[in-house]
């Protein structure tokens, strides 16, 4: 092997790459395609499905979900429903592990798809219950096989109604139905 051949080979590799299309993208204008399971920061929460059981708060490794409830006298699905007074997610300390979503028994909490929440101060990085109510319902399909089986992709921009987000994609039971089932169970 003549001396210098190794260097020459390397030079040819870089030269070939000069002609290759750049792999980086111009971020704010162009974006890489995001997978449907992407665990993003803006949580999607369906108040209709949530019973206020606070499982998510219990499973959170960081303990950043703060839930305050009061009895509401309503029921949803199979359980007693509490009225949510506070549902604060302190996103500054969130590490997007998704354990809260995994824990939610009623499929009320979903991961979001965003990643661009920059704030001037850390105390602003809290998602409050009002923001959760108002935010666009484009849930990530992470740990939500029912959404994935339907081929749902949050990047498409469609919103998912609370009736469609559940594990049993049926028509939601009426209030009377639920009340009856709840009473029978007791």
């Amino acid at each position, binding site marked *: 092997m003549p*001396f210098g051949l190794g260097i020459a080979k390397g030079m040819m*590799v870089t030269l070939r790459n000069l002609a290759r299309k750049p792999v980086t993208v111009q971020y704010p204008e162009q974006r890489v395609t995001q997978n449907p399971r992407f665990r993003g920061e803006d949580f999607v929460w369906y108040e209709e499905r949530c019973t206020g059981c606070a499982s998510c708060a219990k499973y959170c490794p960081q303990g950043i979900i703060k839930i305050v409830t009061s009895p509401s006298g309503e029921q949803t699905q199979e359980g007693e429903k509490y009225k949510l007074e506070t549902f604060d997610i302190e996103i500054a300390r969130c590490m997007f592990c998704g354990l809260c979503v995994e824990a939610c028994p009623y499929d009320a909490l979903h991961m979001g798809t965003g990643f661009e929440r920059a704030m001037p101060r850390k105390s602003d990085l809290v998602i409050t219950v009002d923001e959760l109510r108002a935010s666009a319902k484009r849930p990530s399909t992470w740990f939500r096989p029912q959404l994935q089986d339907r081929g749902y992709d949050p990047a498409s921009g469609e919103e998912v109604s609370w009736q469609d987000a559940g594990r049993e994609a049926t028509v939601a039971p009426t209030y009377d139905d639920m009340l009856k089932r709840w009473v029978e169970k007791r």
Partner: protein
Amino acid sequence: MESSFDKNALFANLNDIFLDLLPESLSWMAYLGTGLTIILIMVNAVLMLTAFGTYMERRVLGRFQTRLGPNRVGPFGLLQPLADLLKLITKEDLRPESADKITFFLAPVLMVTSMLVVVAVVPFGKDSFLADLNIGVLYLVGIPTIATVSMFLGGWGSGNRFALLGAARAVAMLISYEVPMIVSLAGILILAGSMSLVDVVQAQQIPFILLQPIAFFVFLVSASAEMNRSPFDLMEAESELTAGFHTEFSGMRFGLLQLAEFGEVVVTSAILATLFLRGWENPFIPADWQQVLPPQLWLIGKMLFFMLIFTWIRATLPRMRIDQVMAFAWKVLFPLALINMFVTAALVVAWPDPTYTQLWIMVGVNWAVAIGCLTGYTLSRGRHRQKPTESVRLVQIPAEVN
């Protein structure tokens, strides 16, 4: 001196204009004014070229690495150098307490000056140059050495140990690389019979890159060492010495150092083009082939070509270690340059006034010597060298099914 100016059409024309403008009694000022104007034009041209060169280098380096490179400021990011300049100017100018005031101030200035002064002797056309020194080549190798001094001043004066190490490396290395550089130019001087760069360009019936392949290689390598480009960027080795001799510089001082460093690339490209690629003339083999471009553009085009080559090298090669760099200079480049000098001298003794055919024979001989040197070096290393990848072998352990 007078004759040199007579040859210079640029000077003569400008001088006439100034003579027309100025009253009779102030005609001595025309001489001064002309000189200053030309210097202003040249310095700005070089600085603009440097700025464009940094932009080009960053874009091309980006493409080598399959990324985009700067493309935000202005169309295609062309105004990026301007944005860099603005940023550097507005930065706070810090000087460490332990730094020596005078040397710390002097280093960037000296470095930029030494880079700019070299351009004086580069001919941009047959009659378009600042000065046609009859010791042009000597000037070329002498002046850039000031940059070494300024690096040492900057490194030592910073009062920082990283900077000190970088400065020590710079001095040790640059002094050794001067030697093969000068000796490699001896072959060219023998062939051209003159030290004036204008004469060197005109002597190139066949571009010297063909006639002097060894000299070209040695000069290219020692020039990239001289302007501390990869793989010889030891004095500012980022992964070892953070930034080497300019660790402590900030703001526009840092900007000046970077400018000088990149300016050297531009200047060296110009020198390479002049010495080896027929300067302002077209580089093609039939020398009387149609002159399609104005001479200045030919030179700039060749400079861009060499800058591209430097970028390519920088994109590919890792850095060498200081002892390997020194060994390379003294054990490889210096003997090569000597061999080249002796072969060229022998050829010139054989044909003192070569015809075109004899020149081509010279090309053949020189290339044969170059290939012989490469083969010899490979063989001398090859006897006790195995393929590097042979040191790791694959061990097969049968899979145990559990």
